[in-house]
């Protein structure tokens, strides 16, 4: 979707607050939300659906509220959509469904969590029989349009000419994964000259690389 999240190249956001302090969590609640996102049971969602739910946050909330706050909002939205909680339950802080709660999850130690983190080295690629359409060094054009659903083709490269830099095999296609369908499609790193992307970069030798799925790509004349 052409939402507020698609920030690449947008102007007017001002200088960067470069001094972060270095601590992982600046407020206690940030750590709580991080932890919830790592270990709560979820209703059969995919990472792409979760990202799409975050993109659907109202623009003023997306830009105006703190980062981990938007994770909490996204979690709420995925549970509400799936019927795993209701607004009345959020207000009451209680299970009002009348259904028995599932078996409580066991408490994990830090050691167990470190093992769990190792187990979270998820891979998204798979062997497929289809050969990739493009080869390294070949010129392509990024698709000119997105669509209303989740996509990982940012607006700032649409319609622009690039060159295939690397091929990574077939990876889960996010546009369909956000609808619960697991389909693998060739994935490439594509190099775009900064001069192709931005008027103020004329004459620059700088480059921007994006990882793009095959259906985001066209022949140069396309």
């Amino acid at each position, binding site marked *: 979707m052409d939402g507020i999240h698609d920030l690449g190249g947008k102007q007017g956001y001002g200088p960067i607050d470069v001094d972060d302090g270095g601590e992982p969590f600046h407020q206690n*609640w940030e750590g709580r939300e991080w932890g919830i996102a790592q270990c709560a049971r979820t209703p059969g969602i995919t990472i792409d659906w979760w990202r799409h739910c*975050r993109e659907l946050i109202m623009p003023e909330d997306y830009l105006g509220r703190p980062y981990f706050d938007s994770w909490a909002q996204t979690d709420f939205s995925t549970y509400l959509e799936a019927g795993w909680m209701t607004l009345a339950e959020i207000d009451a802080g209680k299970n009002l469904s009348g259904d028995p709660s599932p078996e409580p999850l066991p408490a994990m130690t830090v050691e167990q969590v470190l093992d769990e983190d190792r187990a979270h080295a998820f891979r998204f690629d798979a062997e497929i029989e289809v050969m990739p359409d493009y080869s390294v060094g070949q010129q392509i054009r990024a698709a000119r349009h997105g669509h209303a659903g989740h996509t990982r083709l940012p607006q700032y490269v649409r319609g622009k000419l690039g060159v295939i830099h690397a091929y990574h095999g077939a990876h889960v296609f996010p546009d369909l994964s956000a609808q619960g369908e697991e389909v693998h499609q060739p994935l490439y790193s594509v190099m775009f000259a900064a001069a192709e992307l931005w008027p103020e970069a004329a004459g620059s030798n700088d480059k*921007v690389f994006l990882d793009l799925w095959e259906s985001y790509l066209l022949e140069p004349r396309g």
Partner: protein
Amino acid sequence: MTEFDADKVAHIHRELHSHLPSESALRVKALETLLVEKGLVNSQTIDAWVEAYSEEIGPKRGARVVARAWIDEEFRRRLMQDAPAAIDELGYLGKATGHLKVVENTDSVHNLVVCTLCSCYPFSILGIAPAWYKAAAYRARAVRDPRGVLTEFGVELADGVEVRVWDSTAELRYLVLPQRPAGTDGMSEDELAALVTRNSMIGTDRDLNAG
């Protein structure tokens, strides 16, 4: 179970906008309380995740990877070729590093990593991303004005250095391998790792100090 209904979620966000308390701490508290009540989360496990990412998992892991690559050419080669396998040798393979790629700075190339669409980050080797990495200003500007961004971070590029920006649009995650500073011959892996800054592994720092 989820129906992947985006219209419904857009409506839910509008309801939540007027429904949730405005303070972030209260929102997250409300979420945790209800998840515990429904048996969907264990608060002690949340404690453990916070501790893991406060004490154990963080940029010191990435710094160790960089230092080893500086002193062990064979490791550097494996890291460039198959980064997940190489960091697994150190026990650092984990969350969001299953498709890690390492990009190497040279005298003529400087690399900078961003995620313009959300905030993708190689958690198991760099820990929690800094606030600026997740902020709109960095996400908007890194791909369009990388040199201006670098200047704000105090990075000066020599003439002729090309900037390569990596926008993490898929499940690949990027780690910048900074250049080993001059005057560090004979330093141990521990001493070298202490010179590596978090920002140098994202690309918002370049010339490391030999100490």
